[in-house]
């Protein structure tokens, strides 16, 4: 990472970076183009030697004003924009929006659609955690795991492509259910994937989880206390690594989550290793959810009958779902028209990132990459 960090200026020279640094402090930029930020995130670090004194995120490099755009899109159209926010949880973003519109219009979703949505959401979570795992290992110097992760992720992408027609921005969930019927091969392929996953998952632990070099890089790095995690609004595996129970699927079950058995994964280490372990254990929970549902998809409609033009009654509606990164909230203010008056996406990445400064202070520069890795940042999710 040192190769890509460019020494720019002493902190006092540029007022825009806001660092009122002491003499001897070094201010460097990490990003916006940096492999460890997985996107265009710009961090301004104040260092004393190699010790981090302050981390200041500068956001907005891929801010597309999605909230503003949504104000002129109808309740059928705006969902497609949200696939582009957290692109690794595209299905789950769509699901959050669909659920919010359904809540406002009191649409009863068919059981079949609920189960399909849950399967899709969990496959997405597995794909997202796979990518995170590969990228995380690569960030701290292990290149091989990336290929192992992509082997499994490809299988999921192929399944998605057959049914949804897209591999990344699926746009499959719509108000009232899902857009189209499952591909005839869907169940067989998912079962093949479950088998592949079960056969191969031990490699993950052998390659990385049990690796002593890896564990030493992660243990006691980036401490986030339970109180701080709640105060910073951290959710998802980031908060659960600090022992905060915050799984929306358990707390406020939606779709078919009340019908499946799974465990909310909690770790109490508060460090990077704990956050890593949460995601690894969540993979197993997700595969178990898919396994429980794949043979039990009820017959019936895949979509409720809805009017061509959707109108939400006057009022305010909020729903939240658990994406691979945490709690995604959709807050719609409606004036009774066909487009939202105001829409706010409470994105998990934005809040999780705000805790980075607290986590990183006093650590060494090299450890920052491990911390960012375990926050699992997706930049469009932060910038929106």
């Amino acid at each position, binding site marked *: 990472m040192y190769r890509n960090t460019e020494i720019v200026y002493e902190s006092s020279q540029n007022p*825009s970076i*806001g660092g009122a640094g002491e003499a001897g402090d070094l201010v460097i930029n990490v990003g916006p183009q940096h492999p460890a930020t997985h996107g265009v995130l710009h961090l301004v670090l104040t260092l004393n030697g190699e010790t981090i004194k302050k981390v200041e995120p*500068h*956001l*907005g490099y891929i*801010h597309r*004003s999605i*909230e*503003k*755009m949504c*104000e*002129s*899109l109808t309740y059928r159209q705006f969902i497609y924009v949200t696939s582009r926010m957290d692109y690794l949880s595209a299905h789950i973003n769509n699901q959050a929006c669909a659920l919010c519109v359904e809540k406002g219009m009191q649409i009863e979703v068919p059981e079949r659609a609920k189960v399909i949505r849950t399967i899709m959401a969990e496959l997405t979570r597995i794909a997202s955690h796979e990518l995170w795992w590969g990228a995380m290992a690569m960030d701290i110097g292990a290149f091989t795991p990336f290929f192992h992760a992509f082997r499994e992720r490809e299988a999921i992408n192929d399944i998605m492509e057959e049914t949804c027609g897209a591999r990344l921005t699926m746009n499959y969930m719509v108000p009232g259910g899902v857009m189209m019927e499952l591909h005839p091969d869907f169940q067989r392929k998912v079962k093949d994937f479950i088998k592949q996953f079960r056969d191969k998952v031990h490699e993950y632990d052998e390659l990385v989880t049990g690796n002593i070099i890896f564990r030493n890089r992660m243990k006691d790095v980036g401490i986030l206390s339970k109180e*701080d995690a*709640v*105060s*910073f*609004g951290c959710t998802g595996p980031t908060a659960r690594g600090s022992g*905060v*129970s*915050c799984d929306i699927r358990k*707390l406020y079950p939606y779709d078919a989550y009340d019908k499946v058995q799974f465990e909310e994964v909690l770790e109490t280490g508060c460090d990077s290793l704990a956050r890593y372990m949460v995601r690894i254990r969540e993979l197993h929970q997700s595969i178990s959810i898919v396994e429980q549902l794949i043979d039990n998809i009820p017959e019936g409609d895949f979509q409720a009958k809805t009017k061509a033009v959707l109108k939400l009654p006057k*009022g*305010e509606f*909020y729903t*939240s779902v658990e994406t691979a990164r945490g*709690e995604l*909230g959709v*807050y719609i*203010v409606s004036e009774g028209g066909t487009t939202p*008056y*105001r829409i*706010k996406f*409470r994105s998990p990445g*934005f*809040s999780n*990132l*705000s*805790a980075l400064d*607290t986590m990183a202070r006093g650590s060494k520069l090299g450890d920052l990459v491990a911390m960012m890795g375990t926050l699992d940042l997706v930049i469009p999710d932060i*910038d929106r």
Partner: protein
Amino acid sequence: MMTNEELKTRITELIPGATFEEGGEWLNIHVEAGSWPDLAKQLHDNPEYRFDYLFCLTCVDWKTHLTMVYHLTSTEFRHTIVVKSKLDSGKPEIGTVSNVWKTAEFHEREVYEMFGVNFLNHPDLRLLILPDGWEGKNPMRKDFEDPVNMIKL
């Protein structure tokens, strides 16, 4: 966990001037902007409520005025309330709650640049998402027009 009715009674005792909005799944409370920072501290610290998790902080431009919206929940009791405060659109000002919930620091910076709300006593009120040196109107206001980039259809 307190029901909405219980919360309503308790909060009326806490702030006699509060008004409530009917409908909606959670209790909606309207407070004066001036009293909000003190109330926030009480809602957070009081062991009966323990609203320790601010899960959504945003603003709505109603053209005639702005409304700040705070969604609060308790990780201990799991009850939720929505606090709203009406602000003047010409000179919107409200006290910061970043000393109560740390997440508010970033969220308030976002509202500051997008809506132009001035958060009093905020430790670091600067642009967050917009580029340095941004001039002109606040993009999320309803009267904002961008002649270059398409934001409307």
